């Protein structure tokens, strides 16, 4: 059990779970970043997105913003739980240098996972169907139109 795992255990004991378990500390293997350089992608949707749709996308991005920056600044990987998303549309998975991707995401990336709009939509609907065991803790509550707007917003950046 690592120090952080112990700390989590204490946390849950203290907030009354009272049932902690070293089996729970089985964690994914340490991940130190990878994978390939970022390939800039021309945001094809940027030119066509309407202001209303862009706003809908910004609102949908509320569900993402705590974990993901969109600054394109590599150092942002160190301050948020998830990787930066600027330029993610049509880029290959696992592209943010220095971000600690989970083993399942590294594997999916090495198998050629690419964030085209259709794939990203499936990911948002249920990350586990693309990379079971991913460290992205998310339960989707966005409708199909909102996801489309979100992808439009990300493409516009």
């Amino acid at each position, binding site marked *: 059990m690592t*120090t*952080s*795992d*112990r*700390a*989590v255990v*204490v*946390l*849950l*004991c*203290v*907030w*009354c*779970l*009272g*049932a*902690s*378990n*070293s*089996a*729970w*500390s*089985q*964690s*994914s293997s*340490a991940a130190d970043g990878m994978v390939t350089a970022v390939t800039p992608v021309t945001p094809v949707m940027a030119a066509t997105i309407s202001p209303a749709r862009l706003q*809908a996308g*910004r*609102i*949908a991005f*509320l*569900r993402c*913003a*705590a*974990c993901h920056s969109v600054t394109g600044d590599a150092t942002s990987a160190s*301050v*948020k*739980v*998830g990787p930066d998303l600027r330029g993610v549309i049509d880029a290959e998975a696992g592209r943010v240098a220095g971000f*600690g991707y*989970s083993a399942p995401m590294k594997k999916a990336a090495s198998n050629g996972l690419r964030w085209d709009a259709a794939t990203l939509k499936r990911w948002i609907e*249920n*990350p*586990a169907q693309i990379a*079971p065991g991913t*460290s992205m*803790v*998310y*339960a*989707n*509550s*966005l409708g199909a139109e*909102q996801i489309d707007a979100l992808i439009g917003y990300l493409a516009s950046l």
Partner: protein
Amino acid sequence: MTVSRRNLLKWAAASAVAAASGVRATTAPSPLDVIVIGAGLAGLNAALLLEDFGLRVRVLEASSRIGGRLYTLDDVAGKPEAGGNQIGTAYARTVDTANRLGLKLEPNARSPLLREERMVLYVGGKRYTLADWGNATDNPMPEMFRALPPDRVLSRLIGASPLASVAEWRDPKHAALDVPVTQLLETGGIGRAARELLQVTNGLGDTLAETSLLNLYYSQTNITEIIKIKGPTQNVVGGNQRLPEAMARALKGDVLMQQAVRAIDSTKDGVVVRCEDGSMHRARFVVCALPLPAMRRVAFTPALPVVHAEAVKQLAYGKVTQIHLEVTRPFWSDDGLAPYMWSDGPLERVFPQDSKGDGNPQSVIVWVNGAGCASWDALDDAALMARASAELAKVYPASKGALKFAKRVAWHRNGLAGGSWANWAPGQISRYAVALSVPSGRVHFAGEHTGHTFRGMEAAMESGERAASEILVRA
């Protein structure tokens, strides 16, 4: 969004004065977009995010304290946390909001007194080290779990969670697991003596019969997922309550204190919120971020959908009594017995409040869960302290005269909280977990019990984010 761009909070007594003295006169008297009920993390996060999108928001809080179930005991030596205690690295929203508001987080101190080898077990009136307990003839646990502290055995007995991801906990396909954990234990041949120890400090039900197997698996999966994000658990420098306080200060709109909401009337055009003091507040939407026991005192017109209303009445909440005792003499130095205990007796657990991690806690906490709270609830403070002292002296003879009563916090007796957190008794996840976060007319719901992937603080933050997102789509 930065703190500097935001107006200072007008709260407590100052709120009425500020409003009357024209502080708000510079603000156009446009109607409110959203009334947020409850100034805990859920409500405040919703309010902040709605303001980020330009909506006009007012927060109503029934108590005279910001923070809800984040509660730093500033009046107890060492400032222990009575509520939300440790901020996991995976608590992205909590951490991000603290960062945005300029608050400093620090890794939780690791007290040398909290090492497992120093743990004191007091079972059946006898004191053991963990190593001794593993070999004790009185230890009723199954052979492979005998060496564990009794409160870690239950999650091992139930085996690995069948949930593929934490998002699945509300999925109807797992309803067959939403049964009392006792069903599994009985078929697994776990004896009565072991079952009695298993339920002493189980925090997910007053008794094992009231504990849902699905809720245990949900907790297990939740932990499995959050520890994938590496890093220490943290606390806010100066106390975790500083976070909701900073969130409230960062709001442009009012945070009105001692405004206990008693009625929410929705029409197709807007919502009227009525408070106990007769005040009325109108807005286009409401975020109700009250814990369900507090929501039981709010009349909804039109009535909530049947299942939602039933959930408000029925959902189980955790019972927790904490007795905070200030240390006047470090009694553990006398005999080496650390104030870190698990017991099947009335004290249940003792933790040192060693915020510096130097082995010199300024206070210790007696922590009682579930059904065990009842015997303490009946006592006034003097009788409670007399009993606690006498019980502690049985385990720690050197503790006589070394502890001073500081504070009792009994979350289940606090009418504005009603308990530690939603406990999801058997059948309640299947019946209520989806319904509780579905908007009803112009009223949206937040609070830790409406979190979808987390528990505790991060669930509150997640729910506020979801409620804000729902309203922004409509606004």
